[in-house]
């Protein structure tokens, strides 16, 4: 008799769970949302006119304890301007096979060009694809932004860009957020991408690769 009661007790536990809250996440169909300050993949932000904030100073690379960042500076000229001021990052690479998401790089960034998004889906099927270049890291263009190279639109000199840029959220609004977190921040220059945007937001697909 006692055995019979024991069996029903066990079924009872199972049955009771049917009324509790489900803790399984339905990944990848509805990916969970991390905490707001979760250290995800990096973004290279832009100024409101589309110029890159990165000046190629390599302080992020210096700060990186995992040696995951490679930067090579380049000369801005009046004909070919990528950022305000003299210097821009000609090559910018973050190797996500090495990155430990500690965030020291974004603390080191003197222009708040480098920030981190909440994006965590960084699995790739080759090591090469884990090296993100400027193409992957640069924030998409918001409406009103223009793809560099182009002249400085917000002032005569780089000081007009940088003085007050850190305390004045207006000049960097939009670019600070993970650009794919809502539909308004898609790449304005490419209307087709809006339609094609992946469900699993932020995944950078190779051009032409099947979804």
């Amino acid at each position: 008799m006692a055995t019979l009661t024991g069996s029903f007790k066990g079924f009872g536990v199972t049955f009771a769970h049917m009324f509790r809250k489900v803790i399984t996440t339905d990944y990848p169909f509805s990916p969970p949302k991390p905490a707001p300050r979760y250290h995800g993949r990096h973004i290279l932000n832009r100024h409101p006119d589309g110029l890159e904030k990165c000046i190629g100073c390599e302080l992020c690379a210096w700060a990186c304890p995992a040696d995951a960042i490679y930067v090579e500076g380049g000369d801005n000229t009046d004909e070919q301007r990528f950022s305000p001021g003299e210097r821009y990052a000609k090559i910018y690479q973050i190797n996500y096979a090495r990155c430990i998401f500690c965030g020291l790089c974004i603390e080191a960034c003197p222009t708040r060009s480098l920030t981190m998004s909440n994006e965590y889906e960084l699995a790739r099927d080759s090591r090469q694809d884990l090296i993100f270049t400027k193409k992957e890291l640069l924030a998409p263009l918001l409406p009103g932004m223009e793809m560099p190279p182009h002249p400085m639109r917000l002032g005569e000199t780089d000081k007009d860009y940088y003085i007050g840029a850190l305390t004045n959220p207006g000049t960097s609004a939009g670019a600070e957020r993970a650009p794919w977190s809502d539909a308004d921040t898609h790449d304005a220059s490419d209307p087709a991408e809006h339609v094609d945007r992946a469900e699993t937001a932020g995944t950078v697909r190779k051009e032409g690769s099947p979804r």
Partner: protein
Amino acid sequence: MTDVAKKADTVTLTVDGVEVTAEKGELVIRVAERMGIAIPRFCDHPLLAPAGACRQCLVEVEGQRKPVASCTQTVAEGMVVKTQLSSPVAAKAQAGIMEMLLINHPLDCPTCDKGGECPLQNQAMSTGRADSRFVEHKREYEKPIHISSQVLLDRERCVLCQRCTRFSEEIAGDKFIDLMDRSSGEQINVYRDDFFGGEGTGDGQAGEDEGDVPFNSYFSGNTIQICPVGALTGEQYRFRARPFDLVSSPSACEHCAAGCSQRADHRRGKVLRRLAGDDPAVNEEWNCDKGRWGFRYTTATDRITTPLLRDPASGRLREASWSEALLAAAEGLRDARERGVGVLPGGRLTVEDAYAYAKFARVVLGTNDIDFRARPIRSSGSSPATTEEADFLAASVAGITDVTYEAVENAPSVLIVGLEPEEECPILFLRLRKGHLKRKLTVTAVSPYLSRGLEKLGAALVAAVPGDEARLLNTDPAVAGALSAPGSVLIVGERLATVPGGLSAAAALARRTGARLAWVPRRAGDRGALDAGCLPNLLPGGRPVTDVAARAELSLAWRVEAGVLPSTAGRDVDRIVAAAADGTLGALLVGGVDPADLADPRLAEEALAAVPFVVSLELRQSAVTRHADVVLPIAPAVEKAGTYMDWEGRLRSFAAVLPGTAMTDGRVLEAIAALLDVTLNTGDVSAIRRELGSLPAATARPALPAAEVVEPARPAEREAVLATWHQLLDLGTLLDGDEVLAGTARPPVARIGKDLAESLGVVDGDLVTVSTDRGGVTLPAAITDLPPAVVWLPTNSPGSTVRRSLGVTAGAVVRLQAGVPGPILAEGVAR
């Protein structure tokens, strides 16, 4: 200690409570340095005169009303010095100066090339405040301005320490950059027409007419290196990397025979910049712009990376495997051995590689037809049978290391013949200048005119028509007088070889006056190749090939049978070329030689085309590889270990800076020899060094040559005698495609005297055409104080390729005409 203290020229002082003995006249900052006390400083540099410009090194000296600058304060007996470590007054003064220096400093460290290795950055951390109290607007200047094509000036960052201006004035003698304006507007700038009130063009180019000389110092790179802030930066390295991601390797310069030690900074297998190394015995802390910036040839697109073999069907070079190419080279050389193989290793080799060539020629090819000299070795008209230079080198240069930089600096008097120090050996020029300014060295030069470089040496000129130097050395009283003081030095350049009897006269003069003799070649590998035996009359170590005992010694050391080493002197470079052109030779083995450098480039090209088999060991596609049957790629200096021998005979060893798979010449030659069943043992640098070290010292030394002095050519109407030498920055193969560096080359001009200018009816800047039967060179005239009927041209500069276009060398008679050439000459000018 007591002995030192007793000396009259020492004083005892107290620094931070510690008693210390110092030489009289020593600066307080140096004494502190010796004690291990670091006083912050910007303007102070041990090789420059004290300036006290930045005031950062203030210390408290007891009895003085205010803190004093320790970089200008000399020690005195009983002086009590308190640095920032023990004196709050000094610490406060230093902090105050630092705060003041930073008032107008833009703090753009993230974009500044100096960031990470910046004395201002470091000392702001050690001495400065954590926060700025300065809220006003900083002074702004246009940034950066090009003060030459390779140096950029950012005046905002400047702390007015005047290291650059003092270097330019005291060391280089090129006062192109100076303090301008007054008060808060005081700034470093170049002299330019538009500077004083005029409209700025903004291109930063100094004015041509007034404002004086444009910024074309050959030593401008040093100002970048010693700038304690990021005010001076180099175009070539700008924004390329950060100090903390560079790997620094010591190296030696591969350009000229000065033998500078250098530091190569590289990242990801690529050299990004080179800096002057610190070697007080040789280059002190300086180098020239060619050594600093001329390293891009190794990454040129025409670099050869795989062996190439000429396809017999198509006649074109095709890529081949090493084994295939080595076999082809070995077979070709073996088949040609009977008829003879000429070896032209060139003057850019390390001692080890030159030794490999010398050994390969003797042991594998059984010939003495080897000559490292890739330049005219005799005057245009003289007989190819004269071996004056080779005899001179054997008698007076090989294996001799009498004269050093120090000896030159401390000599009472130096006579220079056939050498333009600033253009052909810039570090020797700096040392001569130092001797001249600091030690009252008198310089006398036998040269066609008093060049700017000679002027900076305060040289007395013995004006010589090219070709007449030998007579002057023999008879001119001023020349002999210049060497009369004991300890004098006679410096001859390689160009003296083109004067019949010149080197003989120099050797005789040195013997007559007791002066020490130094021979200064132009390329880094020349002296090493000479001592390694790359001459038709010399075996390694300066042994004459005709000396039986020397051959026996070497046969023993090389473990070859007696009789293998050829016993008669071989052909020199001119005769190798001639023999190759007329079909006598069966093959040529050529190292880094540009036919355009040889006395007759046209004949050299013909020779390369005519000779049945050419093996070329090359770095890049060249005029030789175009004719070669087998091309074997070899390593540039940066990718191999080796040793250069500078003009003093000093060894300048260096390790490989970059890892690479490219092989040294020695290793390639060893591989060819192995296929011909000879063990050359030159594949490993340390093995060669051991072998060279174990060779017994040479004993016999041949007699001095006594070549006849030939009367200089007599030019007729509208003719002149040609004077020519290389400019430091020219069309040399190792400077190919480096536009930034070429931007500061001296503009090529044809220098003519007043007499010629009058007879041609030209003024400064008018075009003048210098021609021979082969072709012509048209350049703007520069009227210079030259002897009558002499014209000077740069040997290998844009628009003036003398050897190729004219086919003659210094001392030859050339025709002159005003303006551009007529149709008859057009073909020659077009090359």
